[in-house]
């Protein structure tokens, strides 16, 4: 069985927005989700950098 650690919970924290990679990841995830649900090609999301599948 794969080992997992207990989650560290970060509650009531401040947010450093400028340059925050998690916020960028979340924004990209939302854009991708909207594009997929609207039937638009992910290729059209030119402001998101994808890593080519290996």
């Amino acid at each position: 069985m794969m080992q997992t650690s207990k989650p560290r919970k970060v509650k009531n924290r401040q947010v450093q927005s400028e340059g925050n990679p998690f916020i960028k990841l979340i924004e990209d995830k939302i854009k991708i989700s909207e594009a997929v649900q609207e039937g638009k090609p992910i290729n059209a999301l030119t402001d998101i950098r994808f890593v080519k599948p290996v």
Partner: protein
Amino acid sequence: MPLQIFVLSSLYSLSPSKGGYIFTNTAGDGYYTYFTPFTLQAKDTAPIETVSFGFECKRVNPDKRQVYDDKAKRTIVHIIKNYFDKSNGNALLYICLNSDGKARHRNIIFGKWFKELGQGYERHKSKVETENLDFFSSILVKVDNPKKKSIINAFHFTIDYWFPQE
């Protein structure tokens, strides 16, 4: 049936797309998997470049009750395993957003899926709640990765850095 054919038929057929793979399940639902770069910050060393994984499902009949698709799970696990096999010891980040209040449930489901990777992998988790954000994040890393400790430390350091205590 030859073993190879049996194994391949236990997965949906994959088509490469920009940054990931696409597959369609028996019901006609489209799955879009993707990889994006993610930089982990470290306290005393250079940043660690890694990759985040995500996927979206576009359902043919979104109003219809969704049936659990074990083959889709196996296909996604296969994509993740293939990434680790080919990425020369890297790590993989994943987040679950709670915008629909279902992040905990998804996080549990994906935890079960990640166990399918089997022995040799570790999953480290974190949950972030701020006034406007609520999400789970996980990082997967191979047990025998020589940089495992650095990667895990960097994962937690990055979260603490960008979501500092008040």
